């Protein structure tokens, strides 16, 4: 219950929130320092210039990459070795209904369908984003590591592989940054029903109204369960 005596629904545990914010901060630092490496003469790289050298931004990029990777590795362990993690993984698995939900939501927004779509714990946009993040992290990790430890990779692979890795690392970075900007920031910030921000990543809870707006399916099943137990 919150101050207004409204019922609150647990969305994120403290552990999950720490994972999110470590990921978020390291991601933003990676984006800024990464593009500063790709565009060395750019004005927004100036705070990262010490003397005439690019060294600081590559150091910053690698520290952030290490944090990002550590969170990713921890997260995989979390998914498989904790009960809460296994619950989350189960909720996150893609199902055919997610694609149907997307189709119906678009049709609803277009005014073709009037029946609202009832989302359960994760909406299709959250699931898609989650798996895109997993994919992006793997791609960036593999290409990034080969550029970082080039002398190890060059023992087994040709120099051309590093060129491919460099190109992929660059374009995947653009894709990832834009996805966060356009997709994630819309749903958790710019979305008129959520604005100014979805607070659950700060306090861990969703309000009844928020549940109703985006997770009506889950809300219904929770209420049904409560109803049964009270009877």
């Amino acid at each position: 219950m919150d101050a207004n005596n409204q019922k609150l629904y647990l969305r994120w545990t403290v552990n999950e929130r720490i994972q999110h914010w470590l990921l978020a901060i390291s991601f933003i630092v990676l984006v800024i320092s990464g593009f500063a490496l790709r565009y060395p003469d750019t004005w927004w790289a100036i705070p990262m210039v010490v003397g005439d050298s690019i060294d600081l931004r590559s150091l910053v990029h690698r520290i952030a990459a290490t944090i990002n990777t550590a969170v990713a590795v921890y997260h995989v362990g979390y998914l498989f070795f904790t009960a809460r993690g296994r619950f989350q993984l189960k909720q996150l698995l893609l199902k055919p209904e997610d694609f149907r939900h997307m189709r119906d939501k678009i049709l609803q927004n277009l005014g073709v369908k009037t029946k609202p779509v009832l989302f359960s714990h994760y909406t299709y946009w959250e699931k898609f984003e989650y798996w895109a993040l997993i994919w992006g992290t793997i791609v960036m990790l593999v290409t990034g590591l080969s550029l970082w430890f080039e002398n190890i990779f060059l023992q087994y692979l040709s120099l051309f592989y590093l060129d491919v890795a460099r190109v992929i690392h660059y374009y995947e970075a653009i894709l990832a940054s834009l996805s966060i900007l356009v997709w994630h920031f819309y749903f958790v910030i710019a979305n008129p029903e959520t604005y100014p921000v979805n607070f659950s990543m700060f306090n861990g809870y969703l309000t009844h109204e928020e549940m109703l707006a985006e997770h009506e399916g889950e809300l219904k099943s929770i209420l049904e369960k409560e109803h049964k137990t009270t009877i």
Partner: protein
Amino acid sequence: MKKILICLGISLSCAFTIKAQDFVEIENSECFDCHNDPEIQEDATDSTQVLFVDEEKFTNSIHGDLYCTECHTDVTDTDHEEDLAKVKCANCHEDSEEDIMASVHGRLAMQEYPEDLPKCSTCHGTHYIAEVADTSSWMSSVNQVKVCKQCHGDASMIKRHNIAAESPIENYIKDVHGKLAASGDENAAACSNCHGGHKMLPHTDPNSTINRLNLATTCGECHEEQTEQYLISKHAKSLQEGSLDAPACNDCHLEHHIISKNDPMSPTATVNVSLQICSPCHASERLMNRYGLLTDRVTSYENSYHGLALRGGKATVANCGSCHGVHAVLPESDPRSMINPNNLAATCGECHPNASENFANSKIHLIAGTQEMNVLSLVEQVYIWLIFIVIGFMLVHNSLDFYIKSKHIRSQRYYGR
């Protein structure tokens, strides 16, 4: 006894001079009776007239064992005319005069400004001439630039004679040679070490020491190792074969502002080599087309991992010279070349010690049209389309959602439904 000494003096001076001039033997001490007194200078009729001669300094000079009258031949008696004729150094130094008259300085005498012709004394002084190796000599490394500056630091003189080089004296003073000379190093290159002494010729003259084709020999006087390497290079070979666009020493190192490669302002500094030395020629369509060379080497380098890091100021990263060599730049086909397939592993191995055979098999410069570049372009194309489609879909999806939700909230706010 005195007679014997005089005879000895005459025969000695005859032996050391090429063309002995008739003169009257008057003991120097007799001259110094008057001329060693500083007060005698007060009798000078104009500022150029030298009446006082320091006996000790003269005796220690390179001409110290000559009779005064050997140069001042018009003095036949201690009681001589007030106005003496100009000393003719060529009476002895005949070759020097010939060289000077054939040099760029000597030509002045025959052209519009004969008064600008430097005299022997302009450069060497008069009574106290020392050996060049002696730091008191006007022509020693430490002093020479001051002597040349008398004319070559004079803006009106430079303009009058159309001397193209930009502030050669000021720049030389600040460069490696000038600083070394100023520090008193007698081996430091002074003006004449490169330009020649009496026989100084304009760079357009095929015999000039600073002619493009002779520069390697001139610089090689001191920089033997570098010159040896340069002479086997493609650059030197092309130049000697008549491709005058091919670089000589000064095209990379400049002339009067030669700065150490350890100075980050130097074009030869690690971070500047690629952009300031190699690019001006190797990225020039006009030059490269003339010799059938590719221009996209430079851009392909700039966009490579090495190039990006270098543009960011990282000095440890490979520049053009790291792989191609600095002085001994040779084509891939030459077995001595650092980029010859047999040497590539060693060249790359300088920085990448674990590099395998695979490494050397890769194309270093990714040039349009090669198979590698086609694969890279494909990857790029796929990603560009992916970005447009995915982000495009997101924008459309979210814009629609935004519009519907905003409309809904607005109607709730204003109409309560």
